[in-house]
């Protein structure tokens, strides 16, 4: 049984079809990439999958449960976590607080326990702290735990965004251009990290990316969008050689770039 089932997902903005009949069936542990030209509707799909936009039609089912009509925070609580194209960290908070913030709905302390700082609350707080610390350690950020997120280097910020999403204990992770603005070495690190997420945590990953050097080796399946419609779907090889994809997205010089790089 698939973990996420998206059927005929469509959305219109002022009569304009931004996404039209998008279908996706995700197996647990899959890494899927959505590629396509700018304005093809990729981020819009992410926004529908996280409840920011309500689709005009179609269905989203997570483990057989429909998520339509829920608020964004409820999508997150159900287990769909995401990162953002333009990094959206809690910039003025420390690294560890960023991670702990994502655990809010799982914290059990009540309001009065909090403002009077009861022993129970302190104990609970310590557990959360340890949990966050474990995650940071796993992603090589533990030495930075107490510095402000905005003072992290760019690559580390991207990493922190993923760590923060993991604190939600998600089933599905959506990565929106995770390697934008990264150089090759950083790009390789990220690819390794995404694979580990799948292998060690069993996470299912959907990613949007223009960097073909990153997408092609990592994705189990690739969906190509243009003007809101799916124009191709398949493995990296299939997609790369699809004439429609080359015409609409990859372009003629693409092979040249990717082989040299």
């Amino acid at each position, binding site marked *: 049984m698939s973990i996420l089932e998206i059927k005929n997902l469509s959305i219109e903005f002022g009569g304009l079809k931004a996404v039209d009949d998008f279908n996706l069936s995700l197996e647990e542990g899959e890494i899927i990439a959505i590629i396509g*030209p*700018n304005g093809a509707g990729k981020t819009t799909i992410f926004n529908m999958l996280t409840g920011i936009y309500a689709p005009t039609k179609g269905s989203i089912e997570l483990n057989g449960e429909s998520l339509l009509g829920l608020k964004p925070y409820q999508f997150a609580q159900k287990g769909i976590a995401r990162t953002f194209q333009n990094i959206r960290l809690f910039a003025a908070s420390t690294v560890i607080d960023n991670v702990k913030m994502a655990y809010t709905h799982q914290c059990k302390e009540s309001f009065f326990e909090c403002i009077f700082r009861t022993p129970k609350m302190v104990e609970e707080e310590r557990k959360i702290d340890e949990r966050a610390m474990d995650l940071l350690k796993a992603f090589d950020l533990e030495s930075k735990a107490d510095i402000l997120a905005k003072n992290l*280097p760019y*690559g580390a910020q991207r990493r922190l965004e993923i760590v923060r999403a993991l604190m939600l204990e998600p089933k599905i992770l959506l990565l929106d251009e995770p390697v934008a603005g990264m*150089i090759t070495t950083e790009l390789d690190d990220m690819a390794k990290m995404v694979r580990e997420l799948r292998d060690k945590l069993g996470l299912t990953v959907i990613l949007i990316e*223009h960097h073909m050097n990153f997408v092609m080796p990592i994705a189990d399946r690739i969906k190509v969008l243009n003007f809101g419609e799916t124009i191709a779907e398949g493995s990296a090889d299939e997609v790369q050689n699809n004439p429609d994809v080359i015409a609409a*997205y990859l372009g003629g010089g693409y092979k040249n*770039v990717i082989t040299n*790089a």
Partner: protein
Amino acid sequence: MSSRMLDVKDLAVSYGMITAVKGVSFNLDEGEIVALIGANGAGKSTILRTISGLERAKSGSIQFLGKELTKMPAHKIVEAGIAHVPEGRRVFPRLTVKENLMLGANIVKERSIIQQRLERTYLTFPRLKERQAQLAGTLSGGEQQMLALGRALMTGGKLMLLDEPSMGLAPIIVEDIFRIIKEINEAGTSILLIEQNAFLALQTASRAYVLETGLISIEGKSSDLLKDDRVRESYLGA
């Protein structure tokens, strides 16, 4: 014989407590395309922003065609002949394409020149002509990048600073944009290019500087850098 157009010496820039650029020197000759490559946070954008006057240098000098730019206000620098296409396009979203382009010609007084430049821009970007009455905010990323380039062309600058023109764009569009960048260069505009995609940058530029944490670590001809082991390992992924 090409002559020296831009000469940056020991440039240092800091934001508050953090020094983003720690003493960088490089230069560019008339007609050249020079690339600055490096990881995010290496200080590339800061250098461009300092050249165009959006940031103030802490020390060092920037000579452009014999003029010192470090003390000049940004709008004067545009008049001196520098056109900066900023990172993330930064078109004016609630103005039409044409209004955006006309703002590019803000420093020009003569109508005939404005008209001439507009025609030339439309010739370079036929897409913009089709969309001239559309609000810039409704354009796709690729179109916005074209508009940003077109707007810079309208200023009539002799040196164009390009900050990540390929960022977030589909490969096919990137190809298009870089073809146009070369065209612009061939028509006589010098270009200082920042590009994440080091391979693309080195293919486009004649010379390049590699920046690491606010300092220049490697410099040389593009063809040499393409073969350089350090560059290949960190930036080209070979």
